[in-house]
């Protein structure tokens, strides 16, 4: 609340965004690819954070919003040859609409019931993507060709299959979503969301319609997850039912917990670390237990248990508590 507070916050975020831009010139190609993917998935995590971190609602169904973004953007392109740009917004709209409907129903419950209802919705979405196999090709999935993904006109040529372009687009999306999250976190609306998390009954008795505020958080959260999904299919060219499975509902929870719930930069940090932890441990598992075919999802589970037991505030949550109280 000091005068230099807002400037310091914006500077920190600008520095992070600038560092991410610079990273592509420094890092080897392989890590560029990883980072592009991490930035897109971090948008998914930031969306999850709006609902889980700030509003205090634990959803076990966010895979459906990510998948709605993927299919909402990818299927119109694949089946109807829709242009990339409207397809991207179609993905976001599909996820936001799904969040509105699922939220309107699921938010009639609280706590564990809310977790179960969102989980059920997501399972329905997952099974629907398998059931509509003629459209989605289920687990096998669909790939978008380069021609279907490029944007080309008289003034403009954009090829997401080019690694540098892909990195730039992922960075742009990340920057926009991060800015949106920062604005929300520092806005009066964000304060109401935190108030709902901390003491919903008190918030209601201060005259706030907690249901509509929670629903708004749900739609924003779903739209961010959908933007990540839509970008994912456009940048990496693949859509499949896996993205609607329970794994993709657990992952954003893990990323946010690791990085720090209700912090703006925690989702990025958590996604980045978890990506490398899973990869390194995968290599280690393969080296130590060759042929055992152990899955990295086990690592995810172990990490989740350890986090909740010993490190519930995550990295940036702990940093904020101990040292930097001004972190948003």
């Amino acid at each position, binding site marked *: *609340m000091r005068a230099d507070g807002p400037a310091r916050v914006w500077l920190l975020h600008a520095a992070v965004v600038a560092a991410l831009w610079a990273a592509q010139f420094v890092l080897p190609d392989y890590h560029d690819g990883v980072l592009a993917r991490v930035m897109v998935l971090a948008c998914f995590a930031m969306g999850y954070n709006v609902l889980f971190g700030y509003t205090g609602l634990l959803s076990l169904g966010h895979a459906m919003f990510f998948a709605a973004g993927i299919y909402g953007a990818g299927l119109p392109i694949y089946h109807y040859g829709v242009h990339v740009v409207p397809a991207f917004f179609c993905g976001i709209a599909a996820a936001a609409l799904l969040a509105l409907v699922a939220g309107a129903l699921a938010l009639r419950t609280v706590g564990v019931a809310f977790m179960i209802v969102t989980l059920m919705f997501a399972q329905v979405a997952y099974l629907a993507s398998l059931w509509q196999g003629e459209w989605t090709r289920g687990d096998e999935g669909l790939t978008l060709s380069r021609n279907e993904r490029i944007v080309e006109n008289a003034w403009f040529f954009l090829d997401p299959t080019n690694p540098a372009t892909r990195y730039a687009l992922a960075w742009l999306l990340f920057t926009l979503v991060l800015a949106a999250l920062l604005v929300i976190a*520092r*806005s*009066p*609306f964000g*304060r*109401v969301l*935190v*108030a709902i998390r*901390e*003491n919903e*009954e*008190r*918030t*209601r*008795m*201060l*005259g*706030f*319609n*907690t249901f509509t505020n929670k629903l708004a958080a749900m739609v924003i959260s779903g739209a961010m997850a959908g933007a990540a999904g839509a970008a994912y299919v456009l940048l990496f060219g693949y859509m499949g039912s896996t993205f609607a499975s329970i794994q993709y509902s657990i992952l954003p929870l893990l990323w946010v917990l690791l990085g720090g719930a209700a912090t703006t930069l925690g989702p990025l940090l958590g996604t980045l670390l978890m990506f490398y932890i899973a990869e390194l441990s995968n290599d280690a598992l393969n080296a130590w237990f060759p042929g055992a075919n152990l899955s990295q999802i086990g690592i995810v589970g172990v990490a989740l248990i350890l986090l909740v037991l010993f490190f519930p505030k995550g990295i940036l949550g702990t940093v904020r508590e101990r040292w930097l109280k001004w972190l948003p």
Partner: protein
Amino acid sequence: MATVTPLLSCTDLSRHFGGLKAVDRVDLTVMPGEIRAIIGPNGAGKTTLVGLICGRIEPSSGRIVFDGEDITRMPAHRRVGRGIAYTFQITSIYPRLTVFDNVALPVQRMRGSHVASRGIRSEVMHALERVGLAGERDKLAGNLAYGHQRLLEVAMGLSLKPRLLILDEPTQGLSDGEIERFVALVREIGEQATILLIEHNMDVVMQLAEQITVLNFGKVLAEGAPDAIRANAQVQAAYLGTDYDD
């Protein structure tokens, strides 16, 4: 006086929990500017009654009219907009938010929630000054002393610019010195707002109340000026357990 419309009138208001008649056919009329105390033994239905008025609890039957408008079925958050503010019996603040943010919430509610944060600062500080907590604004509310938490809750209620402020046992757990300050504060608030006060401390009630309503077993046992209530044999019986006809 008879021509002034009441600020609040409850008619035949009931709330039953299963077989328990927590509030049983209560009629209550509060005039604008009044400080009304609601007293009664534990379990008399005081908190349930104000819960019905502020909208935390739905009535089983009856009617609530606030400033000429029927609010019986209006959701609680909209009643706040009409000018009814409630402070909880058990201190209900945001312990993990700063004192400033605790008060910023009701302030932004009354301003419309899209106003930029900086516009509300002076108003928040004004509310904190009124209850003497301006110096604590950056502390976490949960780290305040208990008496200060109660004052913070009053500041939150005040920031809603209520026309009817409901205080549910505000002096519970306060020291004598704090109670004295509190009485002065409520008096000051009472100059602008109507106050419904649930209170067990009879000294406080007698100092503040202009009218007293006594509840017992969910029903209105007596109503009147403090002196009349003090002299009422039925009230004494309800409190002391003596027979009526001694």
